[in-house]
């Protein structure tokens, strides 16, 4: 007769039950297969959506909360050029504050000397750089992008237009939010004479 260790001993039926890992339909597998198909489908949709939103021109304008652009349906694609940012409070050219809008509305002059000076300086920089590189094709075209808040008054805008034109930036572009999906078929022109 076999010697048994003293203690609890379960009955035969209980010993062979699921509680002690017996019975049922065998052991469950530890490894579970991931469903790859919906994952790949999702990836494909995301990639297609992002490709549709892709723009090769990059970020021309820095969007800020202070400057809300007006909307337009018949606009063309924006290009790289110096940016004059006009918010309700400040005028900023390529990251440098030029003046306060409040001061400009008080003055009765037509030009903004600080803006003119800054733009002339940038024009000279551009021309010097291209002259050093002996780049004859990239001549100065006088393009400037004006990124103005939609609530800015024309009193301020006409002074900015005049200053840009005086500094040699004759091709002025108003930055707008494109609406309606399609851009204008042919580039259209507007002339400013403040």
């Amino acid at each position, binding site marked *: 007769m076999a010697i048994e260790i003293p203690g609890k001993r379960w009955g035969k039926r209980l010993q062979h039950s699921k509680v002690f890992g017996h019975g049922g339909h065998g052991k469950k597998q530890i490894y579970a297969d991931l469903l*790859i198909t919906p*994952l*790949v489908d999702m*990836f*494909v949709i*995301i*990639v297609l959506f*992002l*490709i549709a*939103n*892709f*723009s090769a*021109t*990059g*970020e*021309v304008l820095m*969007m800020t909360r202070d400057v809300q*652009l*007006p*909307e*337009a*349906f*018949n*606009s*063309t*694609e*924006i290009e790289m050029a110096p940016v004059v940012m006009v918010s309700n409070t400040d005028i900023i050219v390529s990251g440098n504050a030029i003046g306060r809008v409040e001061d400009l509305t008080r003055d009765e002059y037509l030009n903004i000397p600080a803006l003119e000076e800054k733009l002339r300086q940038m024009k000279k920089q551009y021309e010097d750089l291209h002259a050093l590189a002996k780049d004859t094709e990239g001549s100065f075209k*006088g393009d400037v*992008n*004006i990124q103005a*808040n*939609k*609530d*800015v*008054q*024309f*009193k301020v*805008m*006409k002074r900015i*237009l*005049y200053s840009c034109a005086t500094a040699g930036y*004759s*091709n*002025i*572009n*108003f*930055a*707008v*939010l*494109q609406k309606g999906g399609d*851009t204008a078929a*042919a*580039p*259209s*022109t*507007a*002339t*400013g*004479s*403040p």
Partner: protein
Amino acid sequence: MAGGMDLGTGGKGGKKPLDVSINLVPFIDLMAVTIAFLIMTAVWTQIGRLQVANSGQSAEPASPTEDKTPPIALLITEKELRLSAGTQNFDPIPVTRGANNKIELEKLRDKFKELKSQLPDASAITLQAEDGIRYEDLVRIIDECKGDGLPNVSVAAAMG
């Protein structure tokens, strides 16, 4: 196996299965990298431009047909819009605003249609804005002009 495909062949003997399972791991890797790149370079706001040239100078050379058409001007005040073509003055359009305080331009569109029926070759217009005009209103009127067949828009300050 060549090309990273698992044909599921164990040994030498037996029939080779026809079903081929493609290894999706490199495909998913490629997708993940592409998604990361596209998210970084995505442009969420489509920004356009309305081109403006120097005062009294158009970016496009004036064609001979433009000389025959009388100069078209639109005076923009805070209360009304006055359209004129040479000596002909159209009825002033009172400024009305709709939702979000946006200027309504349906009547101006009708005037432009009337003008284009009289002067089909006209392509240039001068906008004379008063000091108090909002930039958004000016841009919307420029946009309307371009959309209604007057692509060469000049912007000037209103006299007086």
